[in-house]
């Protein structure tokens, strides 16, 4: 009897098996990367109403983060500065700059500048800045600004460098010793790249002594 299919079709089961498995693995990889904030959110750098340069202010001038984001140690939200904060300097420095026109307009009219928020969490996830940056009961350890926001002192335009995904949060909550730093250095930029070699061991010691256990249960953030 003549064969129904050609000899080449003998390879079909193998191709289907390997191809099917490959496709499955590819799909899982594709979705777990391209559907995750690692791809969708990292690198988000919206245009701001004023071309404010963190690279210049925080980097070259070396201003402390808390000069503008003054509430970070006291509240859930690291506030954006009021126009008055800008004008503290800019009524003396470059008072006629064209770039600063929107700031002066805001100052005159009393209407706030509409900064565009860069680091966004979903509404069902709560993040409290003060808890993370304050030493308090944590034996002098805290999370530095840089750990989540990156080298802001090198950013001309602020962009998101970390995914801010749930697994990313949980990574630090599960192994805080890798990320904590002395509380007096929270605003220091570049600390993470040049951490002392014994920082992790020191952290572990404090964590053990103080019983620091960042929560990993649902209601820690979803409440």
């Amino acid at each position, binding site marked *: *009897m003549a064969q*129904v299919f050609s000899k080449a079709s003998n390879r079909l089961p193998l191709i289907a098996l390997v191809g099917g498995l490959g496709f499955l693995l590819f799909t*899982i990889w594709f979705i*777990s990367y391209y559907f995750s904030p690692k791809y969708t959110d990292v690198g988000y750098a919206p245009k701001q109403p004023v071309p404010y340069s963190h690279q210049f202010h925080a980097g070259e001038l070396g201003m402390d983060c808390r000069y503008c984001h003054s509430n970070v140690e006291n509240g859930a939200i690291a506030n954006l500065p009021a126009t008055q904060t800008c004008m503290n300097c800019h009524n003396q420095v470059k008072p006629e700059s064209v770039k600063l026109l929107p700031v002066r307009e805001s100052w005159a009219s009393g209407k706030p500048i509409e900064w565009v928020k860069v680091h966004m969490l979903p509404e069902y996830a709560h993040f409290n800045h003060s808890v993370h940056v304050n030493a308090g009961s944590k034996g002098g350890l805290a999370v530095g600004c840089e750990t989540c926001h990156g080298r802001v002192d090198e950013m001309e335009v602020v962009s998101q460098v970390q995914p801010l995904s*749930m697994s990313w949060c949980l*990574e630090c909550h599960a192994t805080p010793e890798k990320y904590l730093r002395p509380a007096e250095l929270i605003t220091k930029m570049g600390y993470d790249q040049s951490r002392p070699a014994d920082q992790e061991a020191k952290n572990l010691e404090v964590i053990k002594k103080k019983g620091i256990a960042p929560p990993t249960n649902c209601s820690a953030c979803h409440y």
Partner: protein
Amino acid sequence: MSNLATHTSYDPPLVDGNPSFHDITEWVSVHNERKAKPYWWAGFSIAAMLTIMLVTCFLYLFWNGIGVWGNNNPVGWAWDIVNFVFWVGIGHAGTLISAVLFLFRQEWRTAINRSAEAMTIFAVICALIFPAFHIGRQWMAYYLFPIPGQMGMWPNFRSPLLWDVFAVGTYFTTSLIFWYTGLIPDIATLRDRAKLGSLRQKVMAFLSLGWSGSMKNWLHYEKAYTIFAALSTPLVLSVHSVVSFDFAVSQLPGWHTTIFPPYFVAGAIFSGFAMVATLLVPLRKLYNLENIITIRHIEKMNIIILVTGSMVGFAYMMEFFVAWYSGVQYEIYAFVNRAFGQYWWAYWTMFTCNVVTPQLFWFKKLRTSMTATFVLSIFVNIGMWFERFVITVTSLHRDFLPSSWDYYSPTIIDILTFIGSFGLFFFLFFIFMRHLPVIAVAEVKMILPQADPHFYEDHAGDGHHTHESAPTVKPSHS
């Protein structure tokens, strides 16, 4: 397979009518090759319409939410879970027949294993859709699986509900592959009988994976079949044990009992064999397969129904004994409430159908009667559905907090969905009986007397034989 036969020449032949190898092929294949009869179209159409009703019910639920079902506090698990356990349980007979009876060389299984395995697969499909919709947010169903995601969140591996996902998932894939492996030689037969160049020939050729019937093919086939049988055998016990953990691992009186796994497995095989009987008694008549599925096969299945039904009856009584013996008033209340509470009618329906009905099979007259088998198998099906209803609902409706006690009633959507699941089951079964051989043709040929290597010695090599020939003793391993 036949060289390890336990079926000796003393026993009555397994196939009546003294057929040749070719007769078996003809008897079975003709139903796949000729035009469908009116009864098939009638049955198929009704089943298809009920399937559409099932789909409609689920779409309605998808749009409106779980509230369209009667589930509400404190009865959070109701008909959906009852139906799930009911359908999964039915599947178990297929696996028992195809795997366990194979390993024990029960050659009579060859007449029923193909359709029983098909029943298993279709029943598991019907089962799986219920928890898939029960979860509420169906578009989040992927949460059930350990998939890497940005949330870094994994299923709770300590939850029996997750074990259930794996148990039933494994069960479905294993059963499907096992069934398909067994089908390959028979599909090749259909391919070889098909008209040259027809679509039918192409489809069958594709599905038979290039089966040529060579010695090498058979060697691989038999090895694969034995391995699958060995893999499936633990599943007969494990799957319904894990299903029972959904209940037994919880702390609820009436659920939290160690007897559940064996009791569930016995119940599953009990209900499964009843469903096989429900399907095969009419099928053998419609397809003129009385010579292959004989009354002796039906009787053997009825004996299994009797044995497992007695186990189930024993378990019912042990539950009451243990509740009393525990001395815990809540445990005692849970069981007294089952039998004499608001759901007394469900309990006694269950008790009558599952405990009394199978005992009738002690009478040879009844267990060798097709009509009695069919009627009693329906009763067993009803009883086993009620068993799951009694377990699920009566334990839940008397919550820990008396203020939340309530009486559960299904909604019309519950009822239509359940009826629709039967529609889907029969829809799939009608397609199966139309397009695939309902009997494992190759396996039945292996148990014919002619398949015995010594057959022609006994019969002087004339190729003709009579069953009245002198009994011969076969070596146990020839």
